[in-house]
């Protein structure tokens, strides 16, 4: 089974180059709007979705965005990259993963991405686009694993319910690999930088490597746990994941902080309807 799963990574479509090209262009302070528009327009699937989500209250633009030109002008660097990321990544969400509906895993992924920015602002007083990308992709392994895990769900739940396994440990035992690890391999296949790859691969095991090394890992781990707790879990694994209190201690998060972050997420999810809506129900 494991061989088949690993082989199916190579059948995934390549990651759209649009994101990287736009990010490169935006690095130049006096970037040309027309040049960026040209790159985005080239990718029609992404264009349609960028337009849909640009008008989301989440991005807070007052003007009505009707064209890609408007989007480049009004969204600003950070939000433009984020809109393109969201539009590109949503294209891969075409199966149910571990859930009952295609939209469930996407909603979870968007919620974790929004939460990652709430936490980043709380701890570092700024947002972080690399973190946003990694968060949106953290469960990408479930898209490939979904089928196998749905088939093996009886055996997996037997271990979770009666033998004190976490869902991740049960995946390893029954399927031969866990969804986080598999996600890391997909990120590698797509040539994502190591910090994104590791953040995906270790999002349930932030204890494995030095927490100081790559803060993305702990931030995505926490964002994920927050969303699981709120019931925005996108699949059958529910809350059957291990908690590591050293992470909350490291960030000095008190219970009231955690609860306030949850309230913020609830508010932002309402503003982000357009982001949630670009994947088929």
């Amino acid at each position, binding site marked *: 089974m494991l061989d088949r799963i690993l082989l199916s990574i190579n059948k995934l479509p390549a990651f759209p180059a649009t994101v990287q090209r736009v990010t490169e262009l935006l690095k130049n302070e006096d970037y040309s709007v027309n040049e960026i528009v040209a790159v985005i327009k080239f990718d029609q699937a992404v264009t349609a979705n960028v337009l849909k989500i640009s008008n989301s209250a989440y991005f807070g633009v007052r003007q009505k965005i009707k064209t890609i030109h408007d989007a480049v002008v009004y969204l600003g660097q950070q939000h433009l990259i984020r809109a393109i990321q969201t539009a590109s990544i949503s294209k891969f969400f075409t199966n149910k993963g571990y859930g009952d509906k295609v939209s469930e895993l996407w909603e979870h992924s968007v919620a974790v991405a929004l939460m990652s920015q709430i936490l980043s602002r709380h701890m570092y007083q700024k947002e972080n686009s690399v973190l946003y990308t990694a968060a949106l992709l953290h469960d990408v392994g479930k898209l490939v694993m979904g089928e196998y895990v749905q088939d093996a*769900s009886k055996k*997996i*739940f037997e271990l*979770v*319910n009666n033998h004190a396994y*976490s869902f991740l440990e049960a995946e390893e035992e029954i399927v031969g690999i866990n969804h986080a690890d598999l996600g890391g391999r997909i990120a590698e296949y797509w040539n994502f930088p190591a910090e994104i790859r590791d953040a995906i691969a270790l999002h349930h095991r932030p204890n494995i490597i030095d927490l100081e090394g790559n803060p993305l890992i702990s931030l995505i781990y926490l964002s994920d*746990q927050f969303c*699981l*707790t*709120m*019931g*925005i*879990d996108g*699949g*059958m*694994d*529910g*809350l*059957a*994941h*291990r*908690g590591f*209190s050293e992470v*909350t*201690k490291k960030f000095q*998060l008190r*219970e*009231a902080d*955690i*609860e*306030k972050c*949850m*309230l913020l997420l*609830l508010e932002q999810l309402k503003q982000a309807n357009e982001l949630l809506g670009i994947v088929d129900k």
Partner: protein
Amino acid sequence: MADLVVGISDLKCSGQQSDVIITYALGSCIAVVVYDPMARVGGMLHFMLPDSTLDKNKAAAAPGMFADTGVPLLFKSCYQLGAEKKRLIVKIAGGASILNDADYFRIGQKNITAMRKIFWKNNVLIKAEDTGKNCNRTVKLQLADGKCFVRSSGGAVEEL
């Protein structure tokens, strides 16, 4: 038949026999289900956090967010449809936790405790309860007969 869907921090009540009230994906949140078999009026609350002192403004805007503001509103809303306190049957589900969360992320446990305290203080008995563990749950209430069903992640549908 109409499905009334209760979102996070929301509550719905009905006296329509054909209605089904449903809430999806309770993690640490809790669904409080009430039903008056005489008036055939029922309701459901899906609260997220135990205590409204965290954010008074948000609690005023969305009382269903917290146990201490949501539960009274649920009862009052059912009274308006003809339910009576002494006849209301109360069932609760949810309040799950992450594995080994002894010293943090105790929201599931805190929710369970806060809610029990509210009912105890108000002399209301909880008829049935499916709380704790680490699964998420979907809860359904049929107004026609007051039957309440819970589906846990990885489990079958069971009557509560």
